[in-house]
């Protein structure tokens, strides 16, 4: 019989990365074609612009089992839609600060500007973020027990 108490799976975090179509998603592409590695547990969701990301998306990602959420967009001033990421910046600054106020670990949420030419940066950012979240452990505070498997 299997001893459940000794069976320990190594923790690999689920990371959701919202990437804007014009910069960060292309940055991820470049990272791939340049043979730069980033952890496979980063799930990229392509959005037209970083400002497309509704706070609800971020919370829903946590609900569905994400351990960390990272939002990537064009550098301020480089938005394909001219001003989209300026709005993102305000919203997300407030949202992340607010989540921390509610007791959600601040390391679980991040926003990075990654351009289409920054494949290496994309890879570095993802590696760093995955490392941070792995050290932090599982997301237990913003999770929905109903969607967790086998618990």
């Amino acid at each position, binding site marked *: 019989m299997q001893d459940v108490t000794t069976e320990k799976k190594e923790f690999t975090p689920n990371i959701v990365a919202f990437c804007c179509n014009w910069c960060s998603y292309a940055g991820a592409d470049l990272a791939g074609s340049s043979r730069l590695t980033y952890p496979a547990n980063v799930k990229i969701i392509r959005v037209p612009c970083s400002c497309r990301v509704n*706070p*609800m998306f971020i*919370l829903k990602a946590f*609900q569905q089992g994400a351990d960390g959420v990272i939002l990537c967009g064009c550098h*301020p*001033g480089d938005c394909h839609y001219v*001003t989209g990421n*300026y*709005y993102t*910046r*305000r*919203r*997300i*600054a*407030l*949202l*992340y*600060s*607010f*989540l*921390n*106020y*509610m*007791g*959600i*670990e*601040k390391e679980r949420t*991040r*926003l*990075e500007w990654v351009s289409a030419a920054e494949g290496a940066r994309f890879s570095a950012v993802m590696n760093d973020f995955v490392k941070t979240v792995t050290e932090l452990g599982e997301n237990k*505070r*913003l*999770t*929905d*027990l*109903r969607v967790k498997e086998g618990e």
Partner: protein
Amino acid sequence: MKDVELKMIERAKELLASGEVARVIGWKKGEFYFDPVPASFETVEELDSLVYNYFCGANLSKYLIEMSKKEGKTAVFLKPCDTYSFNQLVKEHRIKRENVYVIAVECLAKLDINKIKAQGVTGVTDVEVVDKQVKVTSLYGEVVLNKPDVVLEKCSVCQKTHQVKDEEIILHERPERDVNRFAQVAELEAMTEDECFAFWRNQLSKCIRCNACRNVCPACSCVKCVFDNPASGIAAKANDDKFEEQLFHIIRAFHVAGRCTDCGECSRVCPQNIPLHLLNRKFIKDIDSFYGEYQAGETAEGKTPLTEYTEGDTEPNDVFKGEAK
């Protein structure tokens, strides 16, 4: 307060009788002395039941969304804090300003019946306030309470003044005060993540999703609310999971960020006494510190902090490093 009430009734009667307005929005006696309810008066006779006492905490601005679309003008009594909500709704094109006649009424802080009951006083039939003393007459006799102990939370830190008025009924001047409404928010910010989480779990687990905070909130005026969408998975009245409680309150606070005037209605109506104002005040405090001081509803024009930007805005990652401007 009785003299103000008489003046209000007299003025409302004049306005209705002259045909200047088609209806008056005010408060009418509820089941008890301490629960006056918002009401619309359309005839001079009805106005005899208008009341204005220390329990008229309800914000009447939101009712104007519907009322200002009706035929004829609507007169409304607004307290200082209500005028901010009014301005904000005018700014968002929810109220037709030209259809509303605003009568600014004085407010020397409203009382919280729950706090009075907590002091062991029930069956309240009358209240008189002299300076910092609240003389409560109840079915069981008279008691004198300390005013700061029994005022509504929103009133305890209020520094608001009338922002809109077509005319005013102010018989007593309010003394100037210096209070910090962010004291509690700062206390929470100083706590560790674990303590914050425990605090909010403790508070939000009381939530019964009655939606009273949403329904009373003047900023929550969407025709179709995101929480009414059955496909959202969060339309349930009962929480299935702690996640839903958090989601509801995080999203609701975010949706009113930059538009919340801190009128405090959410906390006042919460049947579970959750300090919901602390959620909104966190956003207000952050907006003030990141983007410069901003009071929603101070004017009926201009942009809100979340619908504008500057090139050198605070970076979200800097917020936690103490580098935020």
